């Protein structure tokens, strides 16, 4: 093997221009591979971060009591139990498992909430609003309200409310003004506007209002318990597994964000598939490039191969010489291309810091090692055809020429 390596190195070194061009071609292919990986990965992360960054990753609710079939005997009439229309699902055991959830690795924040629908009344104006009752210090636990505050503060008291900028603009509201909030239970409360936020998510900015947990309890006439618990994870991609674990642990219904964002996931999946296709094409180009270059080398070196065979070189030795050349070209081109990709993409801000309209390239998602390994493997496979052709060279035929 060591001796075959010497031949491979000498052959590659003897045609510096050809080898240089071949390595450059492979490096460009690998650069495309890592660039597409970083771009697709970054774009996916950017989209998810913008879309899902301000919503709950896992939501815990009491299991819904849907209509159930009481009797299903074929020879009798079916009896259906219909749940009461006004009945609400309430989590009464939240306090028992909340400390357990908060102690779990990977959970960034939890937020107990009492939620419901209502109207903000301001003079003759009346606007529908989705009311979220949260703990005073947890307004920003799920959505970064504090970071997107345009006026006032993000801390709720029992007499204050925080609303979105679009809603404030529609009703001509400012911080410090008083509004009436009427819930769908016909309870009305006068509240002072403590803060106005603009997250950039339309449903939050135009329809959501945050109040204290106590205010929400009185608005929605809920004596005990909460409506749900929202959870924010460190890794939002792990939402499905966390939801399963939490459901098993609490016996409650735990819904990951992915369940309500199937379209986004479909889009991301299609985007990833497109990226994989481009990466596959760049690998195919590398394989064809290496195969054709080595095949040419094989034809050029036919007399030498014949002499080597005449002096006792086995077919295996000849194969190894050419396969090593393929591996070396793949390795050098792969490392160069991956390194070049890293250097070129490093100046781009990571998706978390990318501005709207910029290229959300994530240099951390370049798949550098995978790119180099696949390239080496591809180049090795590409060299097998030329290597076999070389091993089949008939010494008699070429020595006589």
């Amino acid at each position, binding site marked *: 093997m060591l*001796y075959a390596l*010497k031949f491979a190195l000498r052959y590659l070194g003897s045609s510096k221009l050809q080898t240089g061009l071949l390595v450059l071609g492979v490096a460009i292919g690998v650069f495309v591979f890592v660039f597409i990986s970083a771009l697709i990965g970054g774009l996916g992360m950017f989209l998810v971060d913008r879309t899902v960054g301000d919503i709950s990753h896992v939501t815990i609710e009491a299991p819904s009591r849907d209509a159930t079939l009481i009797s299903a005997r074929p020879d009798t009439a079916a009896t259906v139990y219909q749940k009461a229309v006004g009945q609400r699902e309430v989590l009464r055991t939240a306090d028992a498992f909340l400390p357990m959830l908060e102690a779990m690795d990977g959970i960034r924040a939890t937020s107990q909430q009492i939620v419901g629908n209502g109207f903000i009344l301001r003079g003759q104006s009346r606007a529908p609003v989705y009311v979220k009752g949260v703990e005073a210090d947890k307004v920003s636990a799920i959505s970064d309200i504090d970071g997107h505050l345009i006026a006032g503060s993000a801390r709720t008291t029992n007499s204050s409310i925080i609303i979105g900028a679009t809603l404030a603009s529609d009703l001509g509201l400012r911080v410090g003004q008083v509004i009436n909030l009427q819930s769908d239970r016909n309870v009305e409360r006068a509240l002072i506007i403590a803060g106005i936020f603009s997250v950039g998510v339309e449903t939050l900015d135009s329809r959501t209002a945050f109040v204290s947990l106590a205010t929400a309890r009185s608005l929605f006439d809920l004596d005990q318990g909460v409506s749900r618990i929202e959870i924010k994870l460190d890794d939002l991609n792990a939402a499905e597994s966390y939801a399963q674990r939490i459901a098993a642990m609490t016996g409650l219904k735990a819904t990951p964000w992915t369940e309500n964002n199937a379209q986004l996931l479909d889009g991301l999946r299609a985007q990833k598939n497109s990226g994989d296709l481009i990466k596959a094409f760049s690998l195919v180009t590398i394989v064809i490039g290496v195969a054709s270059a080595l095949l040419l080398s094989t034809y050029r070196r036919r007399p*030498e191969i014949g002499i*080597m065979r005449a*002096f*006792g070189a*086995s*077919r295996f030795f000849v194969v190894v010489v050419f396969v090593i050349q393929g591996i070396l070209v793949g390795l050098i081109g792969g490392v160069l291309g991956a390194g070049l990709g890293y250097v070129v993409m490093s100046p781009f801000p990571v998706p978390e810091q990318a501005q709207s309209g910029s290229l959300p390239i994530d240099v951390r998602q370049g798949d550098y090692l995978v790119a180099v390994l696949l390239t080496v493997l591809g180049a090795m496979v590409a060299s097998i055809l030329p290597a076999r052709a070389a091993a089949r060279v008939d010494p008699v035929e070429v*020595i006589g020429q």
Partner: protein
Amino acid sequence: MTALVEIRDLVKTFGEGETATRVLRGLDLTLVEGDLAALLGPSGSGKSTLLTILGTLMRPTSGSHAMLGEDMTSASDAALTEFRNRHIGFVFQFHHLLPDFTALENVVFPTAVSKGRETREARERGEELLRRVGLGNRIHFRATQLSGGQKQRVAIARALMNQPELVLADEPTGNLDRESAGQVMELIREINETEKTTFLISTHDEKIAAACKRQIKVVDGKAVAES
């Protein structure tokens, strides 16, 4: 003396059916240890085909071919490759050195390829052989930096590297000027004398043939005359 190579009723036919061409037609030949034989004959008489079969690079259509008591006609390709490496050396008209390698690297190739690396012993023997063929000052020159005569002497050193019992030379001086041809032939005679290596030299040159101990003439695929 024991026979080094023994071939009997050797037939080699190229092609099939109406296009079949019979090049060797029942040739008999014996080479013994220490032979220095010239293989003479007009072009197309079958000399090169005979050398190729003796070198185990081609199989005969029929007949027997044995070397060192081993049957060469039934051995596998891998076995023939190994046998060739250990017992047969070649010198070609166009030297056929590996152009990207030095004189020493070319000479040690037969040993290195069988051992998988260039050993110190192999390099020492290679240097000794190069000094013996008068190229002690060209050891690390690339093949492309050597003259025609020097390349042919490197080729002879390479053929002797594994101390083979038989060296087959196909027009070894055919591409050299008279002076270089004389030096190469003198070298072959010396090696034959001192190491008892058997040489079979295919040539058209009467002077080269005259410098050999035996002359074997091949006409129409048969050895018809020997002196």
